[in-house]
């Protein structure tokens, strides 16, 4: 990257390090951090949405919907995350491809399942074999987001379900006494008040979600763990301009610091949000704030 990097053998230590840390592979490493942040930025709201729908379904008065919501929460919460991560990515991909296969190649003679193989017609492959590599990578990322959202959505659903039930019943009865319909009560009274009860649980989930991002590595995405392992490995002078020994420890230490810093920043931000939400609420926290102000 820097012009003095051409003579990499004669560099001083600091200059050597500056060249080493700006090689093309390191750029991929830094890009992987953006990937992780992007995953979080997309997954968190989607998972919250799944959670909200799940919680609404679970408290529905229409039994099949309630069973669906409660079943979703119970099943996903009860199965190890890692099993779901491996299952959903394969299952979603095969479900998409199978659907496309049925639509695009109705006259395909061969079986889709042949022993271990799952063979759809070439037009139904996702992404198509002819697509450029970035499409394949984006598709993999998309599957990862959906999987994360399904898993974390179930936990969020449980938290929100609890939050909704924690809103004082008197509030809802008062709303009804004023003649609000059930829908109005839900949106105008219940939902605005439930966040303060749900937030501790949700903030917990956010922390777990941050820490779960290295699971991307399991899904075959070149994330920060992949690059830390591959860059930290021993490099011999024959194949690189910057040979070094086994530096994996330093790379993983850097990941550790990154995650610690990230979770710390999240903690501070969530605490501020909690203060805002507590304001004027009929909770001990809200009461304490009222007294302090009075």
């Amino acid at each position, binding site marked *: 990257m820097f012009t003095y990097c051409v003579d990499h053998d004669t560099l001083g230590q600091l200059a050597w390090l500056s060249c080493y840390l700006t*090689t093309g592979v390191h750029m991929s490493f830094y890009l992987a951090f953006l990937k992780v942040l992007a995953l979080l930025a997309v997954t968190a709201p989607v998972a919250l949405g799944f959670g909200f729908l799940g919680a609404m379904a679970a408290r529905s008065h229409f039994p099949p919907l309630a069973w669906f919501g409660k079943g979703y929460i119970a099943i996903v919460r009860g199965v190890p995350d890692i099993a779901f991560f491996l299952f959903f990515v394969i299952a979603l991909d095969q479900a998409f491809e199978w659907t496309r296969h049925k639509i695009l190649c109705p006259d395909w003679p061969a079986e889709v399942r042949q022993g271990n193989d799952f063979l759809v017609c070439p037009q139904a492959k996702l992404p198509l074999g002819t697509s450029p590599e970035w499409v394949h990578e984006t598709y993999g990322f998309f599957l990862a987001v959906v999987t994360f959202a399904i898993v974390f959505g179930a936990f969020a659903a449980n938290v929100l379900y609890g939050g909704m039930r924690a809103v004082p019943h008197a509030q809802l009865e008062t709303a009804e006494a004023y003649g609000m319909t059930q829908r109005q009560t839900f949106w105008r009274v219940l939902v605005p008040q439930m966040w303060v009860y749900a937030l501790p649980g949700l903030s917990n989930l956010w922390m777990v979600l941050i820490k779960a991002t290295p699971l991307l590595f399991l899904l075959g995405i070149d994330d920060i763990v992949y690059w830390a392992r*591959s860059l930290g490995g021993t490099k011999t002078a024959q194949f690189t301009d910057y040979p070094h020994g086994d530096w994996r420890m330093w790379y993983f230490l850097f990941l550790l610091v990154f995650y610690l810093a990230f979770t710390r920043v999240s903690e501070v931000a969530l605490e501020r949000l909690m203060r805002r939400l507590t304001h004027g609420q009929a909770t001990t926290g809200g009461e304490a704030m009222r007294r302090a102000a009075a």
Partner: protein
Amino acid sequence: MKKLILSAAALVLAAGMAVAQDKTVRMGTEGAYPPYNFVNDKGEIDGFEREFGDELCKRAGLTCEWVKNDWDSIIPNLVSGNYDTIIAGMSITDERKKVISFTQDYYPPTESAYVAASEGVDLKGGIVSAQTATIQAGFIAESGATLVEFATPEETIAAVRNGEADAVFADYDYLAPIVAESGGSLMFVGERVPLGGGVGMGLRQSDGELLGKFDKAITEMKADGSLNTLLKKWFGEETVTY
């Protein structure tokens, strides 16, 4: 929210359909096994197989694209169509032939070797590390030594350095540069063992046409000596040639 997911899915479907139909051959490799294949400083796939594969594609008139994949899932992902060839220093064995087909070999049957941190380690009864799902791992499992497997070749070496294993068993060509640069802390021990039926490209069994094209290009490169030039460039002057 549902809308977002649906529209994202629709986007994926649409993007898939819009792409032109001329065939790109996706070449799957590990990118962690120098000199066969590795990721260079620029972040590109490099090595003997990169150069060789690009030349094959040129001769066969194919557009090729390189894809990285972990070693332990490299065969399943070929079979399920995530890429079209495996070109990753994979030895031709009868067991693998049951699942995929191979081109003719482009690297003669390889010798595998033991590397240890000191002379006189017990290779028959000690602990030996090897990469998962390699012919070397299969050999160690039957040799009487205790096998410890790792997902990447890098980790098999690290296991010897930190004392977890007495020795590592891998392709001689992979070990040679590492031993040369270890400053005497690693050394070859014991006899070299010839293993496997040479290194070939792996393709799906249903992909006979593509296999024929690559086979023809390999034959050409063997005949005009350009394969030997490449072998010498990457594996040294005294390497076995055709």
